[in-house]
């Protein structure tokens, strides 16, 4: 197992200069996720604009992998529709769980392809997915809340 496959230059760059870090308003949902194994934490907010991801803001404490992964998440998802963003997440998760056997699609994952090496380090997969799972959770909370609002409005 070659650590250089894990610590790609791109990952270390994102780690040192994380994109989009910090918690911002407005947002429709905020979640706090932890990796119970190691204690890595992230607080993450989503702001949706209709069915489009408008902003993702976060405060993360953790290793280079979990930090860089949140930074890449920020680069990739805002601007996409929720459906498109979920497909990116699926593609990222597929690579992560692929044990090194799944080739990442650069058109979809952009800088995220640098995480391909993480898949060979099962203990680090959870680090790479922490921010993504938090985003998924927050987004479904935000959508549930807006459905609720819609149906409340319809009910009126």
């Amino acid at each position, binding site marked *: 197992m070659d650590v250089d496959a894990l610590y790609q230059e791109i990952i270390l760059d994102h780690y040192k200069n994380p994109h989009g870090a910090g918690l911002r308003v407005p947002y429709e949902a905020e979640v706090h996720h*932890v990796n*119970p*194994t*190691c204690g890595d934490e992230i607080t993450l907010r989503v702001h949706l604009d209709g069915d489009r991801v408008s902003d993702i803001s976060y405060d993360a404490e953790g290793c280079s992998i979990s930090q860089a992964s949140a930074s890449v998440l920020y680069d990739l998802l805002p601007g996409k529709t929720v459906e498109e963003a979920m497909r990116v997440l699926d593609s990222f998760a597929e690579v992560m769980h692929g044990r090194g056997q799944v080739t990442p699609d650069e058109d979809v994952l952009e800088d995220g392809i640098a995480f391909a090496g993480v898949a060979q380090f*099962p203990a680090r997969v959870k680090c790479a997915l922490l921010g993504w799972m938090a985003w998924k959770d927050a987004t479904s909370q935000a959508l549930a809340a807006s459905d609720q609002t819609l149906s409340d409005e319809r009910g009126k």
Partner: protein
Amino acid sequence: MSAYDVEAIRKDFPVLARSLAGDRPLVYLDSANTSQKPRQVVEAIERHYLEHNANVARAMHQLGAEATEAFESGRDKVARFIGAPSRDEVIFTKNASEALNLVARVLGDGGIVGEGDEIVISEMEHHSNIVPWQLLAERTGATLRWFGVTDEGRLDLDDLESLVTERTKIVSLTWVSNMLGTINPLDTVIARAHQVGALVAVDASQAVPQIPVDVASLGADFVAFTGHKMVGPTGIGVLWGRYDLLASLPPFLGGGEMIETVSMERSTFAAPPHRFEAGTPPIAQSAGLGAAIDYLSAIGMENIAAHEQAITAYALGRLQEIDGLTVVGPSEAVDRGGAVSFTLDGVHPHDIAQLLDSRGVAVRAGHHCAKPAHRRFGVQSTTRASFYLYTTEAEIDALAEAIRYTQQYFKVG
């Protein structure tokens, strides 16, 4: 049974070739108590300790990854073996008793069983499926009720409707009785319990070792069993539970591995199965149980069940030829597991077991942790012979011969 090569199987179990005092070959007929272990299982444990030992989950180094793989692949194998819809429904405990106590504790702590509620068990349960419920009833003010047993040793379902009612919160029943050998008609009970909104726990300690089990089609809410009776190691048991149910229940024991986050003021807990696995789990034991499952699966549970059925039929025949011997439990090999308990006129079970032991025949004597079932049949204790995948007809013959010798020794029969 041409395909079932019991002699080949026996070669995997070195202890079966042992000779005892007086140079008598071992005739091991106590598998319902604990099974013997094949070389493959012992080697898996040995290899784990000598090459891959580390703590799991929390360890991020290469050895830790190997140990985690060994431990979690044991969980995968258990899940597949019992047809669990998800590996996250498989909780490792120290034995079946802990698994049953876990259910009783969390149903009480979670407020599912409380004052005025009813718990239903049966008179043929092992103490491990009686005492946890008595203690729960005592802690909560719930009432314990139970199914009786017919003269044939079957679950008495006549009272099903009056026993399992809207007041019932949990029904906990054994699948296969460790004393009577009876296989219970769980479907009927599960259907009734679910109709009235009660949960169902199944003590499958004697079932999983000898019959193919598919928890998804069984339809119970919890299923408990134990590694050491299925050619696996001691120190590991399993509780299977429906995921959504497990996810709604509070923790059982607190500690490392079962938390999400801890502060001095309060803690939050991990999702199942980890929520119910406090502390360092049975790591090497999971590797061993995984090897046990591989071993049983290679032979095929259908084949093992058929062998068990055949050998039990043979034993019931041979034993019931003996004057003064009375089988306690179903006398025919129909809906029946491979444990045969009996009494012998004029000789106490301990003395029978002792005499049998002097001939190399290992059986169990006593109440087999099922005092109420013994009381039901008006006996304080019985002698039990129990069989498994490695048991031969020749061993049953040796048992019958040793019983006759016992009768001569004590000048009865």
